[in-house]
């Protein structure tokens, strides 16, 4: 929760820094006459140009099909540069975007779903095309896929949790609570990057702004463990949780993800652990902090593993240290669960002060080198 706005800012800043490093910033020299005509239909997507200079790119879109369509400019890793949804049949729309040199695709999605019809678009700049290490594009694409899988797998678990609440089954709801959060906790920086979902589903009482209604997991956590009752309000909040998380599931694919935001996201997950889980603040009623803790570490490790081939080439001492510290922290966490296939962790109120200190030390030992991962990726 804490990192909501931070993540967005970080992402923007690192993108700018990347640009500066690769020297591929170009001033726009596109004139209005350079606009690309995009003619969308039910099964075609014609574009008037395959190559444009870097800078501001304008798409003049006309939907000649029978259904509403969506037109996007996509990065090689399928991330959306810019898009317009809901262009009705027979209507026109002008879409502009700031685009750096590189390879892109223009996609028309008739009916606003599926892979759509694609056209290549090459954006040129200064005679040379800046290219990101394809390994990094691969890492980003794989991470996006991971984030999507996590969201897809989370919804059924949330539905189980919600069903128990609607059945008024306190014990079943308690049991389903922590597992319903794992996928979310693994990919939290992605969810947080949207800005609006996290405050609805994962806010804690002390994080509420004045006038903000308390919704989401922790509101239900309080009802189950502290108030020990499920009322009408809880049942309606449970439905709301499904709605909000479905929104998350739909938007994961559009998240702004870069190699540096992946690396920083891994670090942010450890920051979450350091500030919320180690203290027992996150799950103050259910004391299931160690489940979130483990999920945060798993998510961070996934980012790291995907970036490792590049990071290792640039800074093998760092990756050796990270391997060591991930292993050490995971080993320590395993002390708190009966078997390593299960997410039944010791209740955090049973974890003593000196054990919490040991966990905190292990988090610091990992987070400090992890803060250097982004640099090792862009070096």
């Amino acid at each position: 929760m804490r990192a909501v706005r931070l993540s967005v800012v970080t992402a923007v800043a690192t993108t700018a820094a990347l640009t500066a490093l690769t020297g591929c910033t170009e001033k726009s020299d596109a004139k209005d006459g350079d606009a690309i005509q995009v003619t969308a239909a039910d099964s075609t997507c014609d574009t008037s140009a395959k190559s444009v200079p870097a800078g501001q790119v304008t798409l003049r879109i006309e939907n000649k099909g029978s259904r509403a369509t969506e037109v996007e400019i996509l990065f090689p890793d399928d991330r959306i540069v810019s898009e317009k949804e809901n262009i009705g049949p027979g209507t026109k729309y002008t879409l502009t975007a700031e685009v750096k040199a590189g390879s892109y695709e223009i996609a028309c999605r008739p009916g606003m779903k599926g892979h759509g019809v694609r056209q290549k678009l090459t954006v040129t700049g200064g005679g040379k095309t800046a290219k990101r290490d394809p390994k990094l594009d691969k890492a980003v694409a794989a991470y996006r896929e991971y984030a999507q899988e996590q969201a897809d797998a989370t919804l059924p678990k949330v539905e189980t949790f919600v069903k128990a609440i609607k059945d008024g089954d306190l014990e079943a709801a308690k049991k389903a609570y922590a597992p319903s959060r794992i996928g979310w906790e693994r990919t939290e920086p992605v969810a947080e990057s949207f800005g609006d979902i996290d405050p609805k589903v994962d806010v804690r009482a002390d994080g509420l702004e004045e006038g903000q209604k308390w919704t989401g997991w922790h509101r239900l956590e309080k009802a189950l463990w502290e108030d020990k009752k499920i009322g009408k309000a809880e049942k309606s909040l449970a439905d709301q949780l499904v709605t909000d998380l479905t929104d998350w599931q739909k938007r994961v694919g559009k998240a702004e993800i870069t190699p540096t935001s992946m690396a920083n996201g891994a670090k942010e997950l450890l920051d979450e652990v350091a500030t919320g889980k180690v203290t027992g603040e996150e799950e103050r009623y259910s004391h299931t902090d160690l489940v979130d803790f483990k999920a945060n570490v798993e998510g961070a490790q996934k980012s790291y593993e995907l970036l490792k081939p590049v990071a290792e080439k640039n800074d093998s001492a760092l990756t050796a240290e990270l391997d060591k510290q991930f292993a050490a922290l995971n080993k320590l966490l395993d002390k708190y669960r009966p078997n390593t296939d299960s997410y039944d962790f010791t209740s955090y109120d049973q974890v003593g002060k000196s054990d919490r200190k040991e966990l905190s030390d292990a988090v610091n030992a990992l987070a400090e080198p992890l803060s250097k991962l982004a640099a090792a990726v862009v070096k």
Partner: protein
Amino acid sequence: MAEISGEPGPGTDTGTDTDSGAGSGPAAPAPSRRALLGWGGAGLALGAAVAGGAVAMAEAGDGMDPAGADTGGAVAFHGTHQAGIATAVQDRLHFAAFDVKTEDRAAFVQLLKDWTAAARRMTAGKTVGDGAYGGLAEAPPDDTGEALGLNPSRLTLTIGFGPSLFEKFDLADRRPEALVDLPKFPGDNLEKSRTGGDLCVQACADDPQVAVHAIRNLARIGFGKVAIRWSQLGFGKTSSTTPGAQTPRNLFGFKDGTRNIAGDETGRLKKYVWVGDGDGGKTDAWMNGGSYLVARRIRMNIEVWDRTSLQEQEDVFGRDKGEGAPVGKAEEHDPPFLKAMKPDAHVRLAHPDANDGITILRRGYSFTDGTDGLGRLDAGLFFLAYQRDPRKGFIPLQRKLSASDALNEYIQHVGSAVFAIPPGVRDADDWWGRALFSEEA
């Protein structure tokens, strides 16, 4: 008046006006830039210190340099003894005890080398590593940055090794005999989270930000290898190692450390503070030129003390509150007539004359960590004592005090640790603990 607070312009340096601003015109309301930097050849210090550069100054540990006492200059890091013991006491303290987290001897030795390099730079007023800005935008800077623009503030960093360290890395046979575990003293109420530690670093500086910066950066370099076990901030030095300086007061309002060893008393330092040839046995050779530190967090029952009559307060100490004169005497430094004091008076019990000459070098600081949740000031004395052998220094002294000192009604020892303080880092190739970790040394 403008020129007093302003920086001297270029060319104003005379090269002679070096003495802490003393006797150079009317008393300035605040120390001028020159006064802060005052040193032999102030012109040299000025540009270098402003740029955060090193200024070679006092010979560390080998007595103190009186001219350095009131400057914001740098204290030399290299020397026979570590700086921060006999060095003129600075105004502020950040003390940290660490636990070792690694089992890898090579990694730990590397940390000691990295710490030494960082300490060498920080005590000279430089940033750690590649600095606090200007590096790769995607990476956190090496230095945390809060000491940028501040002068070295006489920062000293002093490392120590606790008894528990010798249970690691096969060091058991190198543990000095004098590094004993402290016994339990009557009245001790030690909190585990403020007691012990495999390592300690004492950071003293005239600017608290400089001292905090130093410990913070060392802790950061240490993540994964060591972790802070506990730390203590201190202010208002309660003892002086500067001859002729006013004796500071503790939080009970009394002058403390009247008879402390001064930094220039080479003879007493050698006799009571520095480990010498032939001390202990073979296991102690690496400690030659070092010392032993006892650190105690002593909580003061401030509110109770403040409700105590002046007579009782003076009786407890055995000195008067105004002058600090011993009972029946007029001046602070008059030799005390111990028998004139109450039998349980603090000074009577603690004085070397009553303890076969036992003498320790005190370097304590007052602390207050806010209030304790019951509305009581969480305050007291962070006691730091250096000695040649704790078995002949702190331990017998504290045995006696803990049994009968009238002060015990108003204080409680809540934290405790003992450390072997290795000798100084000799030169740029040397590092903290080399003599302990290198067999040939």
